[in-house]
C-alpha cells in the first residue's frame, strides 16, 4: 500500500485515470455492487454458466453412482483428464496470489486495481481443481481418509507420498487464499455497509465487516497482518505448484522424473494464471466500464509478466528435450521421440505453437497495448497450457517400459462434461462475485488517488 500518486512515470500510461477522487473511486466501485439493476449481459452470462453447472451435477451424479469407468482412463493411462484438469485449474489460481502477495512485497502499485479480482479467481480456480482428485479417487465419499486422525482402522496417511503432500499443500493454499481475500475485503465491506440503502443489505455487509470503523489503531495492526500474510503467501504459492510437480517428479516414469519440474511448473502456473486474468479482465473492464481503473498499463504489465514466465516455460521445454538426449537414457530418449513423432505428436506441436510461438507477439508494444489482441494471445495460452498437461500426463503413461503394456488414451463425453461443469462452477462463482462484492479493492485504490489539498490557512505567525 504505497502512496504512489506522486511517483508515476510520465512515459507510461497511468495506473489510474487522472481526476479520480476518494469519492469518485468509491462511488464507481461500490456502485457496481449496490446498483439495483443487473445488466442484461450478466443475466445471459449467468444463465450459460448456470447451465454448465448443471452439466457438472449430472456428470458427477453419474460418476459417483457408476464409477470412474465412465471416463476414458484405462491402464496404462490411469490419470487422464481428471489430473490434467486438476493441474490446469490449480495453475490458474497462482496468478491471484502472485498479484496480491508478491507484487505487494515488490511495491508494485499497479497490482491494486486487479488484486481483489485475481484473488477471487484463485479461490474459485482452486475449488474447481480440488474437485478432480477427489472424484478421481472413485469413492469420493471416503476423501476424509486423507486426514490424519485416529480411526478404528488404525490407519494413518502415508506421509512419504506426494499425493498426501498435495492434500496438505492444496488445503493450506485454499485456506490462506480465502483468509487473504477476506481480510482485504473487510474495509470495503464497511464502505458498502455505510453506503447501502436497503436495511437487509446494510445488515449483511455490516455483519461481514465485523464492525470495522477505520480506526488508526486498527489500520496499524491490519497493515502489519496484511504484510505478514503476503510474506507467508509468497513461499506458499511457490510450494503449491512445486508439490503438484512432485506428483510427477517423485515417480520414476520417463518424462516425469526430472528436477526441472518444480521451477518449470511454477512458471507455467503463473503463465497460465496471468493468461486467465487477461481473458477475464479484457471483457469485464469493458462491460463494467472500468477502463479508468483497470487501464492499459495493467494489461501491458500483465502481458510482460506473461512473456517472461512464458519464456521460462519455453526454457523448460528445451531442457526436457536436451536432457532426454544428453542423459543418454534410452527410455527418456524414446519418450521424447515418441512425444515429437508418435501418435500424440499433433498435440505436442500445437502446444508448442500456443505456448512458445504465439506469445512471442507480446514482444511488440502494439500487441501489448491492444486489449483484444492480448485477449487472443491469452486464449492461445489457456489452451496451450491445458495441452501441456495433456502431453505430460498422457505421453509418458501410454508407452510403458514393455510394449505389451502400451495403450492409447482419449477422453470420453463424460470427461468433457466434468470439465465443462467445472467451467460452470467457476463462471457462476465469478459472476456472483462481481455482482455482490467489490471486485476492485476500494481502500487500496484510494491510496493511489492524488491527495486533496490541505484546507488549512496559516493564520499569522
Amino acid at each position, binding site marked *: 500500500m504505497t502512496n504512489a500518486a506522486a511517483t508515476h512515470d510520465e512515459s507510461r500510461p497511468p495506473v489510474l485515470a487522472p481526476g479520480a477522487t476518494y469519492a469518485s473511486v468509491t462511488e464507481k466501485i461500490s456502485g457496481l455492487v449496490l446498483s439495483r439493476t443487473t445488466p442484461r449481459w450478466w443475466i445471459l452470462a449467468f444463465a450459460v454458466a448456470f447451465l454448465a453447472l448443471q452439466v457438472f451435477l449430472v456428470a458427477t451424479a453419474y460418476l459417483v453412482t457408476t464409477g470412474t469407468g465412465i471416463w476414458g482412463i484405462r491402464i496404462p493411462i490411469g490419470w487422464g483428464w481428471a489430473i490434467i484438469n486438476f493441474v490446469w485449474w490449480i495453475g490458474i489460481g497462482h496468478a491471484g496470489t502472485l498479484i496480491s502477495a508478491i507484487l505487494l512485497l515488490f511495491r508494485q502499485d499497479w497490482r491494486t486495481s486487479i488484486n481483489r479480482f485475481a484473488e477471487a479467481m484463485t479461490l474459485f480456480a482452486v475449488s474447481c481443481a480440488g474437485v478432480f482428485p477427489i472424484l478421481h479417487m472413485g469413492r469420493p465419499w471416503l476423501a476424509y481418509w486423507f486426514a490424519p486422525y485416529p480411526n478404528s482402522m488404525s490407519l494413518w496417511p502415508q506421509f512419504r507420498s506426494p499425493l498426501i503432500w498435495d492434500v496438505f499443500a492444496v488445503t493450506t493454499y485454499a485456506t490462506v487464499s480465502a483468509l487473504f481475500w477476506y481480510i482485504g475485503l473487510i474495509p470495503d465491506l464497511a464502505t458498502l455497509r455505510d453506503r447501502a440503502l436497503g436495511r437487509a443489505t446494510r445488515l449483511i455487509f455490516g455483519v461481514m465487516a*465485523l464492525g470495522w470503523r477505520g480506526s488508526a489503531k486498527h489500520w496499524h495492526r491490519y497493515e502489519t497482518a496484511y504484510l505478514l500474510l503476503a510474506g*507467508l503467501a509468497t513461499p506458499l504459492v511457490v510450494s503449491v505448484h512445486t*508439490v503438484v510437480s512432485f506428483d510427477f517428479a517423485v515417480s520414476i516414469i520417463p518424462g516425469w522424473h526430472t528436477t526441472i519440474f518444480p521451477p518449470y511448473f511454477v512458471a507455467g502456473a503463473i503463465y497460465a494464471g496471468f493468461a486467465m486474468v487477461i481473458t477475464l479482465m479484457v471483457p469485464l473492464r469493458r462491460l463494467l466500464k472500468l477502463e479508468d481503473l483497470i487501464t492499459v498499463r495493467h494489461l501491458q504489465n500483465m502481458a510482460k509478466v506473461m512473456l517472461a514466465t512464458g519464456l521460462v516455460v519455453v526454457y523448460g521445454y528445451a531442457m526436457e528435450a536436451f536432457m532426454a538426449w544428453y542423459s543418454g537414457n534410452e527410455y527418456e530418449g524414446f519418450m521424447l521421440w515418441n512425444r515429437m513423432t508418435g501418435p500424440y505428436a499433433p498435440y505436442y506441436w500445437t502446444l508448442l505453437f500456443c505456448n512458445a510461438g504465439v506469445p512471442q507477439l507480446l514482444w511488440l508494444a502494439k500487441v501489448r497495448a491492444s486489449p483484444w489482441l492480448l485477449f487472443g494471445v491469452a486464449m492461445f495460452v489457456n489452451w496451450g497450457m491445458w495441452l501441456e498437461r495433456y502431453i505430460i500426463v498422457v505421453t509418458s503413461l501410454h508407452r510403458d517400459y514393455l510394449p505389451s503394456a502400451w495403450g492409447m488414451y482419449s477422453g470420453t463425453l463424460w470427461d468433457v462434461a466434468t470439465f465443462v461443469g467445472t467451467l460452470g462452477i467457476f463462471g457462476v462463482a465469478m459472476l456472483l462475485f462481481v455482482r455482490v462484492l467489490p471486485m476492485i479493492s476500494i481502500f487500496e485504490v484510494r491510496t493511489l488517488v492524488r491527495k486533496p489539498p490541505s484546507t488549512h490557512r496559516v493564520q499569522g505567525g
Partner: protein
Amino acid sequence: MATPSTPPTYGLAASFSSPDDLVRVVRLARAAGYRQMDAYTPMPVHGLAEALDLPPSRLPWGVLGGGITGMLVGIGLQSYTTIVLYPMNVGGRPLFSWPSFVPVTFELTILCAALVAVGGMIWRNGLPEPHHPIFNAPGFERASTDRFFLCIEATDPRFDAAATRRFLETAGAEEVQDVAR
C-alpha cells in the same frame, strides 16, 4: 457546553477532507498533551501511526510463534505416525525419513502462521464489535469514503469540552462535533 445535566459525551470528533490535515492536527494534539484519542480514516494513512505514537504491533511475534508451533506439529505428527503408530518398512529405508516430511511440515508452518496473523489481527483489534460510540458522530458514514476523523475522547485528563473544541477549531478542523456515548 458540558453541564452536569447533559449526558456524558464520548468525545469530540474533528473531521477533515485531507489526510495531510489530519496528520498535522494529530501531531498538534499530541504536542498539546492529549493522549486518549484515535483517528478514523477510509484507508491507511502514511505517517498517522507515528503521529499517534502507536507502539509497534506485537503481531509478528505471534505469527512467529504460530509458525514454530505449526512446524513442531508437522514434524511431531509425521514422526509419531510413521515411527510408532503405523511403521512401514519400505525397502529397508529408515522409518524417520525426514526429507519426505519437509513438504507437509512446511505447509503446516505456513497455515498456522497465517491463522495467527488473521486471528490475531481480528482479536487484538477487538473485532467483531458491532457498535462503537464513534458511529454516533454526525456524518461518520463518510469515514469509509472520503472523510478523515480525529476523536479526542472525554476520558483524556486534559479533555475539556469547550477548550478542546476551541483547540481543534484553531488547529484547522473543518468541523468539530460532539460524539454521544
